[in-house]
């Protein structure tokens, strides 16, 4: 289907095409068809064989019953009229066209009457039924016929043989064998043609997919596999692969953005660090000045380490690789512990930290990560939650169950975040505080968002009217592993716009 796709043209990675046929023999479709063909042939053979065997049995039965009837009739005649009458009757019957085979002999085996010239030796000694070769006349000795015969002992040692030729049966056998041979040839030829068609059709689509894959490997990450629209298994495969490509593209874009930001945001403090050291070397005159410069340098280095750790952690979260450390957690305990940890800090900042925590909320997750995400949110609220209008100076930490999710919310009455910026602040290194007067790197919300995503939940930013409300919606604990690769993006809420807001690590 993508055979004619423009993505194929001029791809340097495209391998030289092999001839169509050998390729065809290696396709799954061809192999499958070949197996079907074989099975079908076997079935056809079995069915034809069964029919032939049944037909032969039916014919044999018919012949036998004819022979039996004749023997019964002839024996009756012999009983009524003696051997002479029997001989007369047989003589008459033998001459009729299409007659059965007859032979009457004396006790010593001399022929009295009949239309059989030659018999295998000893054929007359066995009473009962047998199948033998015979000749009707001395001229036909070279081409013996085959017959089912029955030998009947008459009184006084005379023997009576009655039989019928089975030429009819043999002819039927020939017809069936020939039909079988022809039909097998036909099945084989038609099967080959059909499999060639099926395989070629599938091969064409697979070739298209392969070509697209090659262009993607060659660097065109925007390439996608074509969908035929029939919803068949190849379409499903293509859809899944396209979804995978989308996700990879997303991650690549994220990586790209991170490396750009890292370059920018790490270079700034690195430059500062270097300048500080250089300046100290150049201008410091006393040990105290040198010491102060070194202290400053260590602080800068520590900040760099923090940014680095946070970035590494976010990267880890986004690639979803910490499944091993997921446990069932008592979220209520974590939230109240974290609120208690930050309560003195809030008091110092002149804010009241109030909690509203439903007991016994359980989720599947990592305690450290949830704790850190919550710590970031509370830290942000304490940093930026100073009320700007007539609003109570408080930060509320709430954990409640909403449907099948736990909503963990940190709300303040600070300036909040304008609606237009809510999507952006979740990105790395985004700080709305243009003056950058507060400490931080712009990674805190990204990290929290990554943690929530990893737990299969969603982070929302809402208007607290006035202020900001950050909600981490996490799925309640279930007895199944958490889906780590949930590509569900945390989306900002659509609530009313807000004046300028800020966030940081």
């Amino acid at each position, binding site marked *: 289907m993508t055979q004619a796709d423009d993505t194929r043209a001029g791809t340097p990675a495209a391998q030289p095409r092999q001839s169509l046929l050998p390729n065809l023999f290696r396709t799954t479709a061809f192999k499958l068809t070949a197996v079907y063909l074989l099975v079908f042939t076997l079935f056809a053979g079995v069915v034809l064989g069964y029919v032939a065997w049944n037909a032969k049995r039916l014919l044999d039965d018919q012949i036998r019953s004819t022979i039996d009837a004749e023997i019964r009739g002839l024996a009756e005649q012999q009983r009524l009229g003696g051997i002479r009458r029997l001989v007369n009757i047989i003589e008459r019957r033998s001459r009729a066209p299409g007659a059965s085979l007859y032979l009457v002999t004396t006790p010593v085996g001399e022929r009295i009457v009949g239309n059989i010239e030659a018999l295998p030796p000893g054929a007359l000694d066995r009473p009962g039924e047998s199948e033998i070769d015979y000749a009707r006349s001395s001229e036909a000795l070279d081409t013996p016929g085959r017959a089912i015969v029955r030998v009947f002992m008459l009184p006084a040692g005379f023997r009576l043989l009655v039989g019928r030729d089975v030429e009819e049966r043999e002819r039927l056998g020939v017809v069936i064998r020939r039909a079988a041979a022809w039909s097998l040839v036909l099945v084989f030829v038609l099967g080959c043609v059909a499999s060639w068609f099926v395989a070629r059709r599938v091969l064409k689509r697979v070739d298209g997919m392969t070509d697209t894959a090659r262009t993607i490997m060659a660097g065109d990450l925007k390439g996608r596999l074509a969908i035929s629209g029939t919803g068949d298994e190849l379409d499903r495969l293509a859809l899944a692969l396209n979804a995978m490509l989308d996700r990879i593209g997303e991650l690549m874009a994220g990586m790209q953005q991170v490396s750009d930001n890292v370059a920018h945001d790490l270079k700034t403090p690195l430059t500062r660090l270097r300048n500080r050291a250089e300046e100290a070397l150049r201008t410091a005159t006393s040990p105290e000045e040198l010491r102060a410069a070194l202290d400053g340098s260590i602080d800068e280095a520590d900040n760099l380490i*923090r940014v680095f750790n946070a970035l590494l952690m976010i990267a*880890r979260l986004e690639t979803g690789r910490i499944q091993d450390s997921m446990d069932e957690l008592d979220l209520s305990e974590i939230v109240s512990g974290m609120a208690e940890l930050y309560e003195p800090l809030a008091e110092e900042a002149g804010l009241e930290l109030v909690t509203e925590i439903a007991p016994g909320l359980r989720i599947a997750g*990592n305690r*450290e990560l949830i704790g850190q995400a919550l710590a970031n949110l509370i*830290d942000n609220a304490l940093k930026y939650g100073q009320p700007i209008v007539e609003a109570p100076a408080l930060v509320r930490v709430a954990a409640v169950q909403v449907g099948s999710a736990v909503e963990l919310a940190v709300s303040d009455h600070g300036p909040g975040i304008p609606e237009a910026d809510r999507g952006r602040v979740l990105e790395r290194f985004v700080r709305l505080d243009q003056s950058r007067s507060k400490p931080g790197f712009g990674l805190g919300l990204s990290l929290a968002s990554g943690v929530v995503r990893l737990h299969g939940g969603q982070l929302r930013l809402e208007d607290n009217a006035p202020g900001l409300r950050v909600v981490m919606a996490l799925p309640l604990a279930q007895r199944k592993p958490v889906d780590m690769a949930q590509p569900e993006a945390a989306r900002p809420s659509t609530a009313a716009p807000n004046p300028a807001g800020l966030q940081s690590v």
Partner: protein
Amino acid sequence: MRLLIVEDDAEAAAYLVKAFREAGHVADHAADGLEGYGMAEGGGYDVLVVDRMLPRLDGLSLIRSLREQNDTTPALILSALAQVDDRVKGLRAGGDDYLPKPYAFSELLARVEVLSRRRGAPAAEPIVYRVGDLQLDRLAHRVTRGEDEIVLQPREFRLLEYLMKHAGQVVTRTMLLENVWDYHFDPQTNVIDVHVSRLRGKIDKGFDKPMIHTIRGAGYMVRDAS
């Protein structure tokens, strides 16, 4: 205190050996896992400081092998891997503490000193901790200073308990967060300082001699100043 530093980076190892010696300890160095295992097996060390990624025998295997031979020498793992599950793996292998690189030497020193103390006192912890006129009764949950009873919140009690357990030793902020709150992340704010200063307000206010001392660039220490 006798220390064994197993670290393959020569410069980092030389720095550690020098810094530990300056702090008044005896420090030996092994440059790879097998050498470290041989030296540790000989015994006689109070604490092992083991890098996680080592040539010939990695740090976790080294510790695991020692533990299999019932060698309980406290071991601190240094690692460039600092993700949540790496710490768990390190402790599961038999490590007693885990410090991600890069670290501040003051942090490493404080942790190593606490580990060596653990080795020195395997006996049961006393029920009552006493530092000067400050007393903490772990069973009765009672804190007194001189004749006065001091009422503490449960978390303040645990904070003081940890500080007094390691009286005379430096306790860093991350150690407090780990041992009192059981979190291992870097809070990045002065959240611990605020708790300590609250505790200090209850313990030291109105007394001549402070019990809780701030150690600049490192952390806190409880000791009788006299």
